[in-house]
């Protein structure tokens, strides 16, 4: 069930993209989502696609992963695109009109643009998660949030919660699967019957999951205290993030891309 979800998984590899600093990757991915909105004609979208495909090529991850990443969202994308095509203001040549529904040249072009935007964003974020281990990502987030300490934002605590949460996602998934199997063996049908029956079937799964999470939290807290954890302040770090030359290069490429987009913009 959950196994089909490619989005958010890490695939170990040995490429330039894998070895990049997670801070650089995270920030550049955010910037990428921002600069997508600069694009507004074919040339700019072509440039963005070329850039994305080059990044994917450099990562050495199989194309099929990215296609699979788009698949679960395809209906959402098509839905948005169709709304855009049918209801956008008329402009250019009008092919079809019926009531408020208008299919115009401008509408069609806008639809294609939106489709491109979705695909680009999904490709880039999939590339980020496929090439960055979750723990590195949480380190990067901790680093990026650091300035917020000035306004008394609990950065260490948030970062700790984030890395613990990330660490326990697979454990909880396994646990869910295990309890589901145990309850199925006791005659529970998951995902069958009407909505009320289905909701009731979830109770024997949810309660044990919550209970085991409470127990796990208590054990973990005890184990952390026993090992001398007293809060984030004043701790040294085991995993130290290093900014390499390749990160500077990547940022440079990004800057050039942004400038090029602004020039090519109609």
């Amino acid at each position, binding site marked *: 069930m959950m*196994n*089909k979800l490619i989005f958010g998984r890490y*695939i170990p590899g040995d490429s330039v993209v894998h070895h990049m600093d997670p801070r650089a990757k995270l920030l550049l991915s955010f910037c990428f989502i921002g600069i997508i909105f600069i694009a507004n004609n074919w040339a700019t979208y072509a440039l963005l696609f070329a850039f994305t495909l080059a990044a994917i090529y450099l990562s050495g991850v*199989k194309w*099929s*992963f990215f296609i699979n990443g788009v698949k679960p969202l395809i209906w959402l994308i098509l839905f948005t695109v169709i709304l855009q095509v049918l209801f956008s203001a008329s402009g250019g040549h009008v092919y079809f009109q019926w009531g408020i529904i208008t299919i115009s040249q401008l509408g069609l072009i806008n639809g294609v643009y939106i489709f491109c935007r979705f695909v680009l964003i999904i490709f880039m974020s999939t590339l980020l998660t496929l090439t960055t281990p979750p723990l590195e990502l949480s380190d990067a987030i901790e680093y990026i949030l650091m300035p917020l300490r000035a306004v008394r934002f609990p950065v260490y605590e948030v970062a700790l919660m984030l890395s613990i949460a990330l660490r326990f996602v697979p454990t909880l998934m396994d*646990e869910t699967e*295990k*309890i589901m*199997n*145990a*309850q*199925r*063996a*006791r*005659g*529970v*049908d998951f995902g069958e019957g009407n909505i009320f029956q289905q909701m009731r079937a979830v*109770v*024997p799964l949810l*309660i*044990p999951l919550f*209970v*085991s999470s409470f127990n796990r939290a208590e054990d973990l807290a005890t184990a952390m205290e026993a090992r001398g954890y007293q809060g984030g302040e004043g701790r040294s770090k085991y995993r130290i993030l290093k900014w390499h030359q390749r990160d500077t290069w990547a940022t440079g490429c990004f800057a050039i891309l942004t400038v090029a987009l602004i020039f090519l913009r109609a």
Partner: protein
Amino acid sequence: MAITFKQVDFTYQPGTPFETKALTDINVTIPTGSYTALIGHTGSGKSTLLQHLNALLKPTSGTVTIGEWVITPTTSNKDLKRLRQHVGIVFQFPESQLFEETVAKDIAFGPQNFGASEADALKTAAEMLALVGLDESLLTRSPFDLSGGQMRRVAIAGVLAMQPQVLVLDEPTAGLDPQGRLDMMEMFARLRHERDLTVVLVTHQMDDVANYADNIIVMDRGQIVKTGTPREIFKDPAWLTAHQLGLPKTTAFAHTLQKQGWQFDEWPLTEDELAAAIVQQLPPNAMGEVAAHDE
């Protein structure tokens, strides 16, 4: 109910980049009324095989026959619910499956899912609690107030309450103290005779295997590498070591004695057998000495 595997293969997440083959060409029969031990190194596919025993997993190819049910890769889930009543599985650390407000309701949950009325199910619950050796006063308690060992007994009672004909146990004594472990294993042996159960036990405890099982299936890397009686399996220590398995303590001791010149016609499995074999080989006057020493 006999369970037969015919050329069963199983692959996790087939068709994805995370595809892993867990079972390869499994051909085996678990006879009715047997006490079968499934042993093997961690990751050898025991738990995957176990989930085929009541069709929680369906083979990627091949067929599994359980009583009158024939499970092929295309079998629909709809027909399988009845089957689950006949094959009760006690998963590892079964205490994590408890969820109801009271012990009685939790034990009654299984039977009710299979159509028993609430009154009947609660009556069964009381019987089952006695069967697993807990006091009736616990019936109205919350399962989360109980000790770890008691919770496990309640969970096992919940599986037994469905009146299964086949009882599958996945490391039922993991994490229990020695007395609890012994009590539990004795309980399963007793239940087997009282209710004519077929028992399948997955374990790493070779002593339990030697003491209770009459049939052994050895797995390695998703394949069945050997089947036979405990005596057949435990006669070759080198082969067991090669498959990262051990000997029961008694048999290991007999092997050590043999190196010192003792003779064993067949390898002793239980302590009683070992003692008998040793006594036989003692010179008559030595027996007298031991007896005198005891006094």
